[in-house]
C-alpha cells in the first residue's frame, strides 16, 4: 500500500488553515447551539402551548433530517427564495441551529428531571422564574445533561465536515482535495482521522474534568 507522508507535509499551510476553520466553526457553532438550545428549552417550558407546539415541530424536522441535506437545501435552494448567504456564515448558522435542536431536547429532559417540589420551594420563597431557572434548574440538572452534551459536542464537531459541500474551506475539504489532487487518499484520511480523534479526546477529557469539578452537583439518592 502506498503511504507517503511527504504529500501532506508539503501542504501544511493549507492544512493548518483548514484545521483552523474547522475548530473555529466547531467552537463558535457549539456555543451558539447550546445557548439557542437552552433558550428554546426555556421557551418551550414557559412560553405556552403554541410556542411549545411550533418549536416542537421545528425540532422534529431539524433532528429528523440529515445535516448534509439541510445545509444543501438551504445553501443551494436559498437563492431561489431570496436567501443568499456566503458559505462561512451559512455554515456557522447551520451548525448552530442544527445543534440547538439537539441541545434543546437535552435541556428539556434536564428540566423534566428536576423534581417539581424543588421548583415549588423556589416559588414559595419568592424567587422569580428567571432566578429559579438559573439558581435551581441549571445547577440541579448539570450532572444529568453533561454526558449527553459532551456526546453532542463531539457529534457537532464531526458534522462540520459536511460543510465542505457548501465550499467552506474546513479541514475535510482541504485534506480530501489534497487527496484527490495527488490521489493520496489513504494519507489524507489518516490525517483526518488523527485530527478528529485528538479533538474528541480533548473534548472527552474536558468533559471528565467538568464532571469532576461539578461533582458537588452529583446527588446521591437515598
Amino acid at each position: 500500500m502506498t503511504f507517503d507522508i511527504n504529500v501532506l507535509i508539503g501542504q501544511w499551510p493549507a492544512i493548518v488553515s483548514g484545521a483552523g476553520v474547522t475548530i473555529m466553526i466547531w467552537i463558535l457553532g457549539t456555543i451558539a447551539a447550546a445557548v439557542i438550545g437552552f433558550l428554546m428549552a426555556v421557551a418551550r417550558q414557559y412560553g405556552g402551548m403554541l410556542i411549545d407546539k411550533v418549536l416542537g415541530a421545528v425540532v422534529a424536522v431539524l433532528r429528523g433530517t440529515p445535516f448534509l441535506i439541510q445545509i444543501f437545501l438551504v445553501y443551494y435552494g436559498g437563492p431561489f427564495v431570496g436567501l443568499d448567504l456566503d458559505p462561512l456564515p451559512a455554515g456557522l448558522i447551520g451548525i448552530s441551529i442544527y445543534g440547538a435542536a439537539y441541545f434543546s431536547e437535552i435541556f428539556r429532559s434536564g428540566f423534566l428531571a428536576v423534581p417539581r417540589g424543588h421548583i415549588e420551594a423556589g416559588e414559595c420563597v419568592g424567587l422569580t422564574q428567571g432566578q429559579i431557572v438559573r439558581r435551581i434548574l441549571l445547577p440541579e440538572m448539570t450532572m444529568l445533561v453533561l454526558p449527553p452534551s459532551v456526546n453532542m459536542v463531539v457529534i457537532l464537531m464531526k458534522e462540520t465536515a459536511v460543510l465542505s459541500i457548501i465550499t467552506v474551506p474546513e479541514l475535510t475539504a482541504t485534506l480530501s482535495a489534497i487527496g484527490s489532487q495527488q490521489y493520496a487518499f489513504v494519507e489524507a484520511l489518516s490525517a483526518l482521522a488523527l485530527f478528529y480523534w485528538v479533538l474528541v479526546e480533548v473534548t472527552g477529557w474536558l468533559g471528565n474534568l467538568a464532571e469532576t469539578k461539578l461533582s458537588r452537583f452529583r446527588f446521591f439518592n437515598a
Partner: protein
Amino acid sequence: MSVKLFELLLQASIYTVTISIVSILIGFAIAILLSGMLLSGRGLFVRPAQIFISFFRGVPLLVQLLLIYNLLPVIGINVPSIVAAIIGLSLCTAAYQAENLRGGFASVPRGLVESAEMVGLTPRQIFRRVKVPIALRLTFPALVNEAILILKASSLVSVVGIVELTRMAQDLAGSTFLPLQLFASAGLIYLVINWLVALAGGLIENRLPGAPR
C-alpha cells in the same frame, strides 16, 4: 422530478432502515457489556472499554468503515459490504450508547440496589435484573435519539459500496442534475422514517413498566 426517481429513493431507503435497525440492536448488546465493564471498577475491564469508546467515538465513522472494509481483507478476513457496514455502525453506536447507559446506571437509586443486596441477589443478578431494566427506562429517550442519529449517520455506509438513501440521491443528482428536488425528497423520507421511530419509541416508553419516582 418523476415518480420513478422517488421510487428509487424509497427502494434505497430499505438499506438505510434495515442496516440501521440491525446495527442499533447489536450495538445495544455491546453497549450493555461495555457499560458493565466501565462500572465494574476493575482496571482490567475498565481500560479496554475506555479505549474502545475513545476509538469508536473519536475516529470519524467514514474512516472506521474504510478500515473495516479495506483492512480486514489484508489480514485475511474478506467481509462483504453489508457485513462491513453493520460491523462499523454497530461498534460506533455501541460507543455512544455505552456512555448514555453509564449515566443511566449511575442514576439507579442506591436504595433499590441495597434492597436487592438484602434479599441475596449476586452482583451479576443485581446488574441484570435490577440495574439494566431501570437504567434502560431512564435512558430510553436517549436511546431513541441515538437510533435517529444512527439512521442519519448510516448514509456513510455508501463508502463500502452500499447505495442507501443519501447515496442514491447523490447518484441520481449526478445524472439528472436535479439535486434540490432529489435532496428535498430524500430529506422528506428521512423525516418520515425518523418520525415513525420517535413515535414507536414513545409507545414503547409508555409500555415499559413503572418509572422510578
